[in-house]
């Protein structure tokens, strides 16, 4: 039994070591262009702007606003988002989201770092309620998309560079979008994943699934020595032993790799109940 447990931990550690590769491949697959005439009917499990010329899938938040703006119940989109959440919680944020990966890369720029508590991360839900649901419902316009820094980076800037028609339409809103992106770029370089932690509405949709998803973390509280190594390596700066189902956790498994006493384990994606 013990051999089986250490074997599983070894497996998840090997998986976690390849996260950078998975993030790179995910960014490429989500923006692989050629299949877009068919695959753009599928919402992708990440915040990836579908106005990007190369985007192969639909952005779940953009699609959600489209339905809300038409006063239709977004059953299909919510079903896909709910299925991903129920299976892996916020693991998509840690493994598949190109904008999350981008934030981790920007944070590697050597600058003075600013550590902020996760206490106010309910602001994600405010973004979801106001910019994705309420305002699009009233105005029938996708207002989150109009301001989204991921959209500016993946679509706004490339489209303006590629098309003179788009350049001729540039107005105040475009400069506001650029300003927001610049502000987030600055913030990303000093604080870990600020957009994911305080703004992302997709993260807000997946957060409630973290305690109940099939893929989740378990901490052996008796074995844990509270050394905070998990927090040191965590891209969202949480102490996993305080709440293994934290709504901020993106299931990147960096803590599983870093834990010196090996007290963090992954529960089976099939719904099993592995012990740490």
């Amino acid at each position, binding site marked *: 039994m013990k051999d089986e447990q250490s074997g599983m931990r070894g497996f998840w550690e090997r998986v976690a070591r390849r996260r950078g590769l998975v993030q790179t491949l995910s960014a490429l697959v989500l923006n692989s262009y050629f299949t877009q005439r068919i695959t753009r009917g599928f919402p992708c499990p990440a915040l990836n702007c579908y106005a990007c010329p190369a985007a192969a899938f*639909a952005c779940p938040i953009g699609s959600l606003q*489209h339905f809300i703006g038409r006063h239709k119940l977004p*059953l*299909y*989109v919510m079903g896909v988002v*709910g299925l991903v959440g*129920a299976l892996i919680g916020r693991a998509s944020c840690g493994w598949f989201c190109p904008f999350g990966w981008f934030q981790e890369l920007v944070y590697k720029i050597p600058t003075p770092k600013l550590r902020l508590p996760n206490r106010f991360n309910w602001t994600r839900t405010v973004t979801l309620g106001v910019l994705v649901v309420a305002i699009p419902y009233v105005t029938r316009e996708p207002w989150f998309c109009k301001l989204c820094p991921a959209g500016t980076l993946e679509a706004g800037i490339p489209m303006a560079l590629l098309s003179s028609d788009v350049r001729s339409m540039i107005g105040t809103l475009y400069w506001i979008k650029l300003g927001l992106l610049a502000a987030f770029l600055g913030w990303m370089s000093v604080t870990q994943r600020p957009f994911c932690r305080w703004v992302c509405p997709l993260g807000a949709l997946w957060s409630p*699934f973290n*305690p109940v998803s099939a893929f989740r973390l378990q901490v052996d509280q008796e074995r844990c020595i509270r050394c905070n190594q998990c927090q040191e390596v965590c891209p969202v700066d949480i102490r996993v032993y305080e709440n293994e189902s934290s709504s901020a956790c993106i299931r990147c498994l960096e803590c599983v790799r870093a834990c010196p006493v090996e007290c963090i384990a992954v529960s089976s994606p099939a719904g099993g109940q592995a012990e740490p």
Partner: protein
Amino acid sequence: MDRRRRLFAINRVSIVLAVAAILAGLTFDQWQIVLRNAILL
């Protein structure tokens, strides 16, 4: 143990509801709506 069983049940109910929502959405042709919206951007 009870807590684990409850979480397990909630997980399975969530999966069933999500699949039901996808199927319901597909019957209303929402896949086409998503595709058209994403292509027209």
